[in-house]
């Protein structure tokens, strides 16, 4: 290995560019507007500055990719050391970065999608009083996310892991005046913290077992670990991932997170942050592999169940952003499903394509909201493709991609996952995956049809308009990527997979006729889903059918519409009792019991004092009597001593 200074420089630049911009904007963003006439003359300079810095990072990322590709395949993992961080008694953790195909892939996605979303935000956030702070946060997020993926040890990864959580908190609660937004922000952070708690325990267990947190060494020594330990570690790490990547049982924060500005949802809650868990599992794949079956089975089944579960809820949701949120959860479940069956590259592939099309759809949803004055209820919309052609057409790309229509990006990645599951013999998972694919096609079509097709319908008093060019320049490339993203990893060439292989290993793919059959099946299911949605939402009699369907599904539909009451169950089952207990501790136990016991001693002294004070009656004869008692006691005691 030849750790070249250029790699350290590149990695450092990538992170520091965005970080320094964030800090600069945080301190001077709005202030320069007040102080400098130059700043006043360039509207949105803050946004452009932020975008440029991400762009620069993107450029550096490409350079990084090129430099990496220049090297022979087996030398494409470069660890660079910036400086020592924690170093106590043989335990050493540094600011070390790892540059390898996996991290570079992530960096490219983050900076690439991030750049587009930054540009989009310039238009979207125009006129917001906290315009510059938004970009500061956004850049801070980018920097944190880059740190997460570039980290060479788990502790540094954890820094990024929590930092992106913080940025998510800041951005969800960006419009903190809204109680719903601040609640959502808090919920997101705390739920994430619960996951992080497990993640931290996992890190501790690794540190205790391996004595080191460097990714390479942990993975290298994975084989030497006891199976139980490895499984425990993996489950703890995965528990962290369920928080960050919104899987059962910690997914509840993500739908609420839609309270944040839509670009945030696109960048953080679709394309990048929520995929951190997926990235982490892929990154630790040797460990997961070494731990034997249980951990991977758990990952696969949690992923699959989440995919199905979220898809069910998405099918019953009316809020377009929330539909997309559930969809994201569902798709993330897909990725974990892939990891669970050992298809790490498939999972990563889906991560990348999902980043394209889901970011696209979120941005599209944002455009819709932008055009409709903030409306998010799809029942208030219709036929918008005619009113907002750019938005409509680009959204269509995303829709087709997620439904898995050939040749859109989603088809290839989803197919890769299902194929791997089949090849591994995990037919149950495959079945869940295919069912989810059907549901996905259904609810996304439902969304698309209701919003963009049919009769034109906009909320009253709103003049619907299409996006400004800054937003369009983000939508169009993403739409393109949603269309062609699949070619990254065409079944024949498997470019991405080969690129990632040194890190995540080779995955099993079915051979012969099977892949073709599977792909056909998946396409069929997608078509079925679209058809069902079309019959319910596009045709004239759709209304009636819908009602019959809902009637037939009965309680299931009601439950799905109410998010299966999970929030309520958590609320009444955990939060409320905990709150009551805390209130008891704060209002009764601490002041009354503990403090009461301690100050009670003091009070006892006072009472005693008051009580025996009466002895000091003022009567001199009483005093003499007391005196005499003393005398009698003393003489009695002494007599008893000497008298015998």
């Amino acid at each position, binding site marked *: 290995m030849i750790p070249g200074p250029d790699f350290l420089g590149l990695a450092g630049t990538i992170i520091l560019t965005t970080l320094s911009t964030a800090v600069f904007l945080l301190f001077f963003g709005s202030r320069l507007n007040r102080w400098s006439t130059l700043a006043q003359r360039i509207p949105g300079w803050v946004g452009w500055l932020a975008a440029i810095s991400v762009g620069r990072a993107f450029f550096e990322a490409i350079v990084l990719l090129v430099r990496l590709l220049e090297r022979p395949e087996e030398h494409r993992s470069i660890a660079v050391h910036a400086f020592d961080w924690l170093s106590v008694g043989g335990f050493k953790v540094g600011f070390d970065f790892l540059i390898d195909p996996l991290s570079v892939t992530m960096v490219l996605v983050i900076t690439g999608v991030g750049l587009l979303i930054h540009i989009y935000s310039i238009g979207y956030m125009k006129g917001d009083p906290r315009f510059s702070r938004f970009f500061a946060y956004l850049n801070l997020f980018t920097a944190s996310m880059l740190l997460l993926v570039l980290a060479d040890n788990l502790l540094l990864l954890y820094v990024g892991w929590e930092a992106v959580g913080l940025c998510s908190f800041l951005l969800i609660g960006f419009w903190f005046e809204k109680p719903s937004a601040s609640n959502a922000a808090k919920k997101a952070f705390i739920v994430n913290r619960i996951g992080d708690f497990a993640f931290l325990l996992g890190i501790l267990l690794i540190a205790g077992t391996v004595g080191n947190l460097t990714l390479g060494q942990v993975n290298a020594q994975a084989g030497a670990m006891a199976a139980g330990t490895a499984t425990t570690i993996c489950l703890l790490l995965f528990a962290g991932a369920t928080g960050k990547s919104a899987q059962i049982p910690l997914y509840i924060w993500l739908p609420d997170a839609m309270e944040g500005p839509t670009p945030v949802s696109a960048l953080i809650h679709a394309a990048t942050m929520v995929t951190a868990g997926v990235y982490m599992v892929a990154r630790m794949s040797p460990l997961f592999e070494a731990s034997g079956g249980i951990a991977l089975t758990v990952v696969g089944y949690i992923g699959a169940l989440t995919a199905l579960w979220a898809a069910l809820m998405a099918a019953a949701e009316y809020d377009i952003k929330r539909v997309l949120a559930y969809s994201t959860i569902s798709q993330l479940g897909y990725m974990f499903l892939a990891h669970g069956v050992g298809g790490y590259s498939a999972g990563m592939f889906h991560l990348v394509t999902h980043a394209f099309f889901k970011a696209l759809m979120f941005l599209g949803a944002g455009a819709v909201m932008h055009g409709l004055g903030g409306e998010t209820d799809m029942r208030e919309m219709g036929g918008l493709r005619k009113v907002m052609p750019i938005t409509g057409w680009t959204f269509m790309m995303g829709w087709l991609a997620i439904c898995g229509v050939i040749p859109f990006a989603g088809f290839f990645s989803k197919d890769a996952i299902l194929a791997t599951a089949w090849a591994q013999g995990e037919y149950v998972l495959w079945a869940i995956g295919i069912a989810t694919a059907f549901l996905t096609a259904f609810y996304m079509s439902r969304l698309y049809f209701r919003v963009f097709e049919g009769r034109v319908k906009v909320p009253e008093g709103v003049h619907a308009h299409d996006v400004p060019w800054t937003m369009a320049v983000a939508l169009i490339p993403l739409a393109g990527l949603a269309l062609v993203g699949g070619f990254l990893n065409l079944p024949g060439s498997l470019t991405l997979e080969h690129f990632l292989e040194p890190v995540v290993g080779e995955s099993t793919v079915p051979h012969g006729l099977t892949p073709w059959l599977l792909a056909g099946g998946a396409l069929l299911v997608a078509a079925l889903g679209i058809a069902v949605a079309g019959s319910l939402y596009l045709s004239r009699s759709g209304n009636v059918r819908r009602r019959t369907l809902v009637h037939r599904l009965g309680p299931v539909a009601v439950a799905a519409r109410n998010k299966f009451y999970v929030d309520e169950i958590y609320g009444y089952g955990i939060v409320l009792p905990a709150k009551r207990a805390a209130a008891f501790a704060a209002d009764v136990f601490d002041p009354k019991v503990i403090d009461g016991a301690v100050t009670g001693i003091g009070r006892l*002294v006072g009472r005693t*004092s008051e009580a025996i004070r009466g002895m*000091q009656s003022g009567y001199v004869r009483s*005093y003499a009597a*007391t*005196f005499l*008692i003393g005398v009698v006691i003393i003489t009695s005691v*002494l*007599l008893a001593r000497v*008298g015998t």
Partner: protein
Amino acid sequence: MIVAAGFTAPHVELAGIGPEVALVVAGLVLLVVDALVGDRWGGWHLPVLATAGFAAAIVLAVGVWGQNDIQFSGMIATDGFAVFSKIVLATFGVLTVWLARDYLTAEGIEEGEFYALLTFAVAGMMLMASAADLIVVFLALEMFSLALYVLVGFRRRSRASQESALKYFLLGAFSSAFFLLGIALCYGATGTTNFYPATQGDPSLLTYLASTAPEHLGLLVIGTGLLIVGLGFKIAAVPFHMWTPDAYQGAPSPVTGFMAAGSKLAGFAALLRLLDATLFSLRTDWRPLLIAVAVATMIIGSVLAVVQEDVKRMLAYSSIAHAGFVLTGVIATSDPGVAGALFYLATYGITVLGAFAVIAVISGREERYVRLTDMKGLFYERPAMAGALTLFLLSLAGVPVTSGFVGKLLVFGAAIQSGYTALVVVGVLTSAIAAFFYLRVLVVMYMQERDGEVEVSRGGWFGPAVIGLAAATTIVLGLYWGPLIDLAEKARFFTG
């Protein structure tokens, strides 16, 4: 000169009782001068004369520092212990004199007898410190007690003062009777009242103890118990403490201070010499008793002080608690214990005198403002007084950098060294209780605003001067106490 047959002329050696003689002479001179001069010299001559007497006493005491003698046929011991106590007592006397100067003027009772009685009282206390015979102890005790009865009632117009005097007197006489019974039993047991043999082979308690089988000591032990009762009264040990709050509250503040300082020291001096030096071999008999008394004293004194609203009364209870602390030094029955107790008594005396001096200065005519509520916001009106009182109270509470802390350290240390850790634990816990009521004073002085009229404070500079001196001593002895503890350690008992 005709000397009857069989009469051995006494060997009179005045050096040993020089300080006492000086003070008695000063007292007599004061009486005469007062009668002759009257009000003419603005009352200056009286305190000056008294001071001269105390100064002479100190000089004479210092002169015999280092002697290790018994004199007057074994009636008194001229040893380091006695000399140390005498110097300290004379110091208390001087401070009291100058504190009383302004006080008496303001109260309209500037009478020469005050100073005379004070010198007699100190002379009695000094005699007590060097007494080496039970009857001398008794006489000395009566000498200063009688003077104190009168001094306590010196504000004759004040009902409180009268009442204090009467209570103190009746109970004092009552306890004297018990003390006397104790002497009788000791005499009955041994046929002598001398501590040390006057000359080799003479009867004395020490020789008796050395030569008698334990089963014959019963009467002596009971007598000892009664002696402890009598001295326990003087040092205000529970359950013989009941007079203390009433007497302290009613007495003129300078007298209260003097009483707390001097009479405690004198009582302890006798107790230490009697128990730790003379009846040392009976320690297994009296020590458990004293431990019980000490524990009760510490607890009752501290606990009862908690609810007091009158500052003088509160300090009275605190002085009870302090008696308990010093008792731990006595119980240690070791040289460090004795030295520690001496140090404690000396510093406690200065501190408590200072505290009562502050009260004397701020309490206004007729001592009207002695309640806790009267001290509200004192820090803002008279910061120096409040600061000094704070210092004294902290010293009483045993907070470091004050002499009170060092005293506690020494006696508790001695007790621990002798193995009485549990007693020390009781001591420290009661100190914590005690801290509460000292803090209460701080609370009113610093943290509450004065409501209502502003008090009439006593004029004059001597009160503040005494306070300043006491404060300086408290601090200096808290910071650099090596020399004093050196002296206290050299203040050994007579060794035959």
